């Protein structure tokens, strides 16, 4: 009734190959993005914009990156945090040493550096597979964080070793640093998220995305039909690390304001992997849903208890938070192993008939 796929006729190749082939889908996505730009910054208060939506969006970008690698190319990585750190530290180097660089360029450069590092650590994937590869990516995780902490060059020889993200502006409005308004930072990050999501959506349905999926589904068969594993796997590592690097740079510049290695430790890697799995492997929408779900669940649980003023000790809240978080993860995996994105599909299928299901 509300969601109709029938009766839509395509008369050109272009419309048949469009990103959103169904007008309703297109309208919906445009509507959500428009609302995110035009409505949310005015209705959300500082806490919602700065501490809820902003970090969720940044983590969505990281989840998008990992989803490209794990969901589309089938290479499990536990090194997401390290690639995020690479983006953050390199962006800091660019921002602090070449001060005239516009901030979006700085962030993209950080992402590119992360991509180069990602390719280097993706090399073992040509020989090592599955969980062996996953644990191998931990080498990247630990080695890179060690490197960034150990070499003072990365932090401009600052004595304290935790440099502050420098304040930068676009069109005269501060978008990074502590004094930037949450709304400005939110819009800045949102733009990155929207553009990167569009790029990802187009990448995965194009030639390169199809080779990734071929490798994921069966690498030997893919090789037999002429797909080069070297190019394919490394390109997936590069694109994925680029996304993670951008996310890491944004995390440092727009959210926590410091460039600190421990913000990108192994638990961050696990968290992003969670987002991808719970959101849905191989789904752009799933990356966003998963990121919001995993990031907001603990905070929501924590807030719920505080808001209702339940007389529970702080530590107990956290224990319960852990238990509920763990249990919900397992619950979701059991009920819907294909993630939140699959749930969304089901919703759409139901909407097709609703309210007259028979």
């Amino acid at each position, binding site marked *: 009734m509300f969601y109709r796929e029938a009766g839509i006729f395509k008369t050109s190749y272009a419309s048949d190959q469009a990103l959103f082939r169904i007008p309703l889908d297109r309208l919906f996505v445009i509507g959500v993005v428009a609302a995110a730009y035009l409505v949310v910054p005015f209705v959300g208060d500082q806490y919602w914009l700065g501490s809820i939506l902003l970090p969720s969006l940044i983590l969505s970008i990281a989840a998008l990156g990992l989803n490209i690698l794990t969901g589309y190319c089938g290479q499990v990585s536990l090194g997401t945090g390290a690639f995020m750190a690479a983006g953050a530290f390199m962006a800091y180097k660019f921002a602090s040493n070449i001060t005239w660089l516009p901030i979006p360029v700085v962030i993209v450069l950080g992402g590119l550096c992360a991509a180069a590092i990602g390719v280097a650590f993706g090399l073992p994937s040509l020989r090592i597979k599955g969980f062996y590869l996953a644990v*191998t990516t931990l*080498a990247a995780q630990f080695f890179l964080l*060690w490197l960034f902490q150990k070499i003072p060059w990365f932090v401009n020889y600052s004595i304290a070793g935790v440099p502050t993200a420098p304040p930068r502006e676009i069109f005269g409005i501060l978008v990074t640093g502590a004094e930037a308004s949450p709304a400005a930072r939110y819009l800045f990050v949102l733009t990155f998220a929207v553009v990167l999501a569009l790029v990802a959506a187009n990448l995965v349905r194009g030639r390169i995305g199809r080779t990734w999926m071929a490798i994921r589904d069966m690498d030997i068969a893919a090789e037999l039909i002429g797909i080069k594993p070297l190019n394919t796997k490394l390109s997936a590592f590069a694109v994925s690390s680029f996304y993670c690097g951008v996310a890491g740079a944004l995390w440092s510049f727009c959210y926590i304001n410091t460039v600190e290695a421990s913000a990108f430790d192994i638990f961050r890697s696990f968290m992003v992997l969670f987002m991808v799995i719970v959101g849905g492997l191989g789904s752009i929408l799933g990356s966003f849903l998963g990121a919001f779900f995993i990031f907001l669940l603990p905070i929501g649980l924590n807030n719920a208890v505080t808001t209702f003023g339940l007389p529970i000790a702080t530590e107990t809240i956290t*224990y319960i938070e852990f238990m509920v*978080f*763990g249990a919900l993860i397992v619950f979701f*995996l059991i009920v819907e*192993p294909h993630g939140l994105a699959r749930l969304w599909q089901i919703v759409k299928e139901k909407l097709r008939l609703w309210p007259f299901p028979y």
Partner: protein
Amino acid sequence: MSELWFFFEVLLSGMFAGTMYSLVALGFVLIFKASGVFNFAQGTMVLFAALCFVGFLEMGLPMVVAALIAIAIMVAWAFTVERLVLRHLVNQEPIILFMATIGVSFFLEGFGEFIWGGDVHPLNVGIPDDAWFVGPDGAMMIQQFDLSAAVIAGLLVTVLALFFHYTRIGRALRAVADDHQAALSVGIPLNQIWVIVWSVAGFVALVAGIIWGSRLGVQFSLSIVALKALPVLILGGFTSVPGAIVGGLIIGAGEKLAEIYIGPFFGGAIEEWFAYVLAMFFLLFRPQGLFGERIIERV
């Protein structure tokens, strides 16, 4: 001359440390072998088992009773996990199962601290804690604690090996490890096997937890020892019990030697990643680990 003694001291104590890693890695291997699940919750199980044990000790129970109750709890835990989690995830992809165990790990972490609190619990089970000095002027030191831990680990592995080899259950376990389908068709109940193997892993976790706990006190950071077991796993192979032992020895000795002899050139603290990089280079030559089963792929 004393340099040489020092080298052997480092080597030996590295290998002792390695047996401790092996002990944790063993729990992973057992479960992976029997169910193909990469059980990330093993580290948390170490913490949880040790917390239960020390909790009952502090209630005034004798050590044996406390240990028995802790084992019983781990068996109950294995049963719960099988019933509530694994059973519903049969035939899912390995990564889904892996994520599920991370979820389980979060739950257990919260649950353990919820019941026993987040304090440090000192633990002393009477493992000798002195050192022997051998060589000229005591040039080489051997920790009795490390030696005891290594002996305990060795005993545990022997017992497990015997158990796998000579008991009915052990044979069933090996059958399941070889081929789930074939094992099912000759009437081996898969679910029971999983409960058993998780219980055994729980027992291994308890032993590991007691040993680590008597060094540091039982506290939250016990759960991060799992991270030290991962390179051991990939080096030795996910499916091999001897692999876990040999891998542990290599990683333990390798990282200590590297830290002392290579570390200073890089500003130290290379231990954190050295084990992973070492394991990675091994894997480049043997992608299935030292003792892992050869992966044969067909289209």
